[in-house]
């Protein structure tokens, strides 16, 4: 096995990267089941392409690149169906109807696109910082702030006391604030 291959740890991918990839995807496809499918397909594609991993990028960057292609492919297939319908349509070019026909056909159902993009980037930045936390602190932080579990559930799930929970939250917050720095604060 080459050195590059030994750097890949597929058995850890779900635990290490699934939340990050899922969060990345769902902000772009807005469908939970679809997002899960795309993440699963990414991991499966990664498994099939293990031999092609050169080690130039990190494991995570490599998986994100695969995911991006999966998302693009999804939209390409979705829009190709629309495209075929458009070819059949007749656009009446009269003096009353000025403007670019393609722009008018593209549905703008997301007037907040710029803000959504910024939020998505912030989300990825937060996840990058969560990854640097102690695993227990990260788990507590995610369960409390993202999954919004009750304290009792978190404590049972992780086998910790309420006091440990708050210590983890405190440490996680301080480290996240340092990590996010002046870019986002």
């Amino acid at each position, binding site marked *: 096995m080459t050195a590059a291959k030994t750097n890949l740890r*597929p*058995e850890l*991918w*779900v*635990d290490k990267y*699934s*939340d990050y990839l*899922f*969060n990345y995807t*769902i*902000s772009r496809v807005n469908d939970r089941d679809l*997002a*899960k499918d795309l*993440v*699963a397909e990414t*991991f*499966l594609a990664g*498994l099939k392409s293990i031999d092609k991993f050169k080690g130039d990028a990190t494991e995570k960057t490599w998986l994100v690149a695969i995911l991006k292609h999966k998302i693009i492919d999804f939209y390409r297939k979705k829009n190709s169906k629309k495209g075929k319908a458009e070819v059949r349509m007749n656009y009446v070019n009269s003096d009353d109807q000025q403007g670019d026909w393609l722009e008018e056909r593209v549905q703008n159902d997301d007037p907040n696109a710029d803000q959504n993009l910024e*939020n*998505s980037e*912030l*989300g990825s930045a*937060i*996840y990058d910082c969560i990854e640097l936390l102690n695993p227990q602190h990260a788990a507590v932080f*995610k369960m*409390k*702030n*993202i*999954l919004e579990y009750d*304290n009792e559930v978190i404590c049972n*799930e992780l086998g910790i006391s309420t006091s440990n929970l*708050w*210590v983890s*939250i*405190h440490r996680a*917050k301080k480290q*996240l*604030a340092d990590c*996010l720095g002046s870019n*986002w*604060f």
Partner: protein
Amino acid sequence: MKNEENIPKSCLKVGHYIDKDQYNETSFWESLHLQLHIINCQRCKQYNKMSQKLTNLLNKTKLNALQKKEKEELKNRLKF
């Protein structure tokens, strides 16, 4: 918890209340104690401000994560 920075006990306690406050989990007395303490304590005032900013950022981004069950299903799909 080790007090590596030699933070006064009162500030450690208030830091804890500040954390709880972000989730509206403080009691009336804890909340009052917090508000009175940060009038004169710059360290805790700063921490309170930072905590609020972080909460606002998290609310803004609306992060998503997989439930434990969903991760197990994912692992099954990958046969791990």
